[in-house]
């Protein structure tokens, strides 16, 4: 029997748990059961999970324990539990993407990420809630009800990956997988006081990731510490011949980056366009303090301008809906998932139409309509074509900035977590949440959000975003680890320790 109580166990980070597992201090079954107990205790309130795969999780844990006992050499995350965003396929386990249109669909195949997690003997606890088809910044647009922020259950946990972030902040799982199309990993991390990384586009295979916007989507690690995120990043990243856009090159050594933490002599850029108006004073204040810390740690901080970032949001809301309108066409009730109105009289077109009318939520329909319009002949050049040009200009802004600095930083989000219901009827206000995170998706490089404290006015977590050039993901971890360590020294404990007990 373990000497550590369940309550302590679930609060440990993955690196600590990994050591305890390999030392034989705890078993994976004990740890997994502790997480499952925690889910039973708090998920009625938080609603981070759409599906808990209890039996399979315990079976995996048992298998890992048996093999460890037999002396088998196991990976570093073997036996560590993880929460999987419900947008990734897992054979036989319902995958809904937060949509009623896919309710009960058991995919007949594993996504590459799941394959890699299985190969690393990670214990997959279940599937987490999300905005429908990853469209949203609050998880309020889930077809299965909202997820609540463990810091304040009246507030949103961010989105679209609110379920994964909330699962971490509520200590239901030490690790989670998210996907980030315009900030869906980083914004939830920011508002839940957790760490989230959007890797370089192509670093993590998209095979089995149900596409929102193919040219923007990227899966990545979510965790409660920079090192944990690195350990997970290492497991899921790497070339996959089944994804044509996958990068066929060695993965940067992110774990070494997270273990380095020396940023002396690094040049860090403050993006002028990602500051100022619209940013909550408490967010601004924490950000300025963090930047001062980076200077204290020996980095040289300079201001840089990325003038085309001002057009990022507009371009994003043309490219994303365009690709989404096409990617989501297949949900037509013909082959899988929901079929509505098939009364034996209705034509194929009518059944398709009824299925999509009933199966999709309002935000999904809004974006499908936007995209359909933007791609229409006569409008294509003015909308989709122009948006692609903006995209090129944003890439150039990054390239120019990275000629003078090693990484860029900004607040991850303009505000802390807002109240559930506050912006649900105001799409434009909702879209503004992603103003700082979107440029990285458009350019395809990488970024991290990590917690830097609580905002003075509401005592809610504030996140800082680090952005690095494509395929230098290790830099994110190096800067992140340095800042995390300095904050830990200052505070005496990790910020997440201050999350309410629930």
């Amino acid at each position, binding site marked *: 029997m373990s000497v550590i109580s369940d309550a302590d166990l679930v609060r440990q980070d993955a690196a600590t748990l990994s050591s305890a597992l390999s030392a034989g201090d705890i078993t994976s079954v004990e740890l997994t059961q502790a997480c499952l107990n925690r889910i039973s205790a708090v998920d009625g309130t938080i609603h981070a999970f759409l599906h808990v795969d209890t039996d399979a999780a315990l079976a995996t844990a048992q298998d890992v324990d048996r093999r460890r006992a037999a002396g088998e050499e196991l990976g570093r995350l073997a036996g560590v539990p993880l929460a999987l965003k419900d947008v*990734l*396929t897992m054979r036989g386990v319902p*995958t809904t*993407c937060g949509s009623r249109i*896919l309710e009960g*669909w058991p*995919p*007949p*195949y594993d*996504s590459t990420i799941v394959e890699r997690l299985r190969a690393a003997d990670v214990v997959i606890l279940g599937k987490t809630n999300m905005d429908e088809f990853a469209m949203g910044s609050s998880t309020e647009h889930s077809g299965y009800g909202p997820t609540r922020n463990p810091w304040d259950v009246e507030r949103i946990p961010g989105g679209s990956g609110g379920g994964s972030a909330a699962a971490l902040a509520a200590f239901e799982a030490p690790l989670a997988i998210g996907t980030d199309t315009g900030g869906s990993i980083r914004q939830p991390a920011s508002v839940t006081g957790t760490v989230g990384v959007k890797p370089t586009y192509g670093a993590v295979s*998209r*095979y*089995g*990731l*149900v*596409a929102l*916007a*193919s*040219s923007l989507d990227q899966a990545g690690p979510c965790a409660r510490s920079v090192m944990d995120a690195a350990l997970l990043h290492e497991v899921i990243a790497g070339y996959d*011949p*089944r*994804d*044509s*856009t996958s990068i066929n090159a060695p993965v940067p050594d992110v774990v070494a980056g997270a273990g380095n933490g020396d940023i002396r002599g690094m040049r860090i850029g403050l993006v002028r366009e990602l500051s100022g108006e619209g940013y909550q004073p408490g967010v601004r204040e924490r950000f300025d303090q963090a930047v001062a810390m980076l200077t204290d740690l020996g980095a040289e901080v300079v201001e840089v301008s990325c003038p085309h970032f001002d057009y990022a949001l507009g371009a994003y809301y043309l490219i994303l809906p*365009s*690709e989404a*309108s*096409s990617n989501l*066409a*297949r*949900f*037509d009730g*013909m*082959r*899988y998932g929901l079929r509505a109105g098939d009364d034996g009289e209705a034509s*194929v*077109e009518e059944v*398709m139409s009824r299925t999509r009318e009933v199966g999709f939520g309002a935000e999904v329909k809004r974006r499908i309509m936007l995209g*359909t319009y933007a*791609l*229409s*002949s006569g409008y*294509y050049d003015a909308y*989709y074509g122009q948006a692609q040009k903006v995209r090129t200009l944003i890439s150039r802004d990054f390239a120019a900035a990275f000629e003078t600095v090693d990484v860029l930083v900004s607040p991850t989000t303009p505000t802390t977590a807002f109240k559930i219901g506050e912006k649900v009827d105001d799409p434009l206000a909702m879209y503004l949440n992603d103003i700082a995170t979107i440029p990285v998706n458009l350019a395809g490089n990488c970024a991290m959000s990590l917690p830097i404290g609580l905002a003075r006015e509401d005592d809610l977590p504030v996140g800082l975003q680090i952005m690095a050039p494509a395929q230098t993901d290790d830099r994110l971890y190096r800067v992140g680890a340095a800042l995390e360590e300095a904050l830990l020294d200052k505070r005496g404990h990790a910020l997440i320790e201050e999350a309410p007990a629930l």
Partner: protein
Amino acid sequence: MSASAIERMKFDDALAAFEPVLGLETHVELGTASKMFCSCSAEFGGEPNTHVCPVCLGLPGSMPVVNASAIESTIRMGLSLNCSIASWCRFARKNYFYPDMPKDYQVSQYDEPLCVDGYLDVVVATDDGPREFRVEIERVHMEEDTGKLTHAGGDTGRIHGADYSLVDYNRAGIPLIEIVTKPIVGAGELAPLVARAYVTELRDLMRALGVSDVRMDQGSLRCDVNVSLAPSGEPWGTRSETKNVNSLRSVERAVRFEIERQAAVLSGGGRVVQETRHFHEDTGETTSGRSKEHAEEYRYFPEPDLVPVAPTSDWVEELRGTLPEVPSVRRARLQAVWNISDLEMQTLVNAEALDLVESTIDHGVDQAAARKWWTGEFTRIANEQGIALTDLPVTAAHIARVEELIADGSLTDKLARQVFEGVIAGEGDVDAVVQARGLVVVGDDSTLLAAIEQALADQPDVAEKIQGGKVQAAGAIVGAVMKATKGQADAAKVRTLLLEHLGVDG
């Protein structure tokens, strides 16, 4: 059959009043082992929905990966059509909802085709001898095929009126190339023949390249025929698009019909409607399908799940080195080598026997014999059975063996035909059929002499006539002997023996 309601103008009158403009869009299923974007078998047929996987079923989360050999085939096709090969191009999504498309979009190419600006020279026979036409090629691009719908419960086989429809996705994702011509003008009354010659030449080219089995009957070569008539003094008319014309003869007929139909419409003061039309093999007519008066909205955009195709010039040049002889050049060469007339060559081409004859000759068979078998006996049998010549189970090796047996006197022509009858019926190879059917020339002199004596005894008057110098009367005796030996004797030999026996000089 009731008379058609569609008005037509006589072909010659139509041509006197209007100038036809053609456009041909040809879809070819490539003969790659696997599909365009996944590793499923691309073989024709199979139990429904057995050649499928998450990718070609378009399951959520699945992603395409380009089949390199499909790109290679397309480049070789483009080079054979004298096209330039793009150094960088992308796939695009063509978006529309239809249940035979697993993703409700088709991965195709739009404004960045892999091959552009080529031509194909074709020859049509005219009263004044062969005439060459250059058909200009606009583009050759790649796309994936759709699944196959079967509409059940209705009486038309069409979606309207059907109780339900079945979908087979085995065909979904099979690589297709589409070859689009520029407008073909100036063919005049030869337009139907030019269309046919173009599709024929294209088919032969692809067969020579080995990129497809180009079977129009199985749908691996499908043709859309666009026809418009330019009223005199005007450059263009409105075109119709006749879809899925599935034989060479139908291509010719569809063009002819559309010229006659549109001429009647225009000369009656009407307006040709821009629409798709269906061709009916039984009547040779086209009927109205979907109107295309409003431009179709496919919302094309570059396929974000695939990276651009960027063939290096080294690779393109390497592929250029693998191109086979162009069919027209090959035909000229073979005609010279075999020393046969234009007409004899045309007979071979029309019978689609060129490859078969060439391979038979390669097996050591005399060219005249090879031609005779394929364009004679075998063409007759294939027509009777309603199958392609290539589908007959007769091989060049069979013919070579039969010719060997004829040469050494073991078979006669007549027996040889019976041997092939057995081979085609699946009774085994040549020797097995000969054995099983006992098809051997009755060759030994004593048996034949006995039969001759019997025949002479039966017809003493004939014997007298022959001996009296009427040698041509020998035919009656030879006939009787052949009958007695059930045709298994060599008639010439019987005749020689008979005359020897009667002491008469042949």
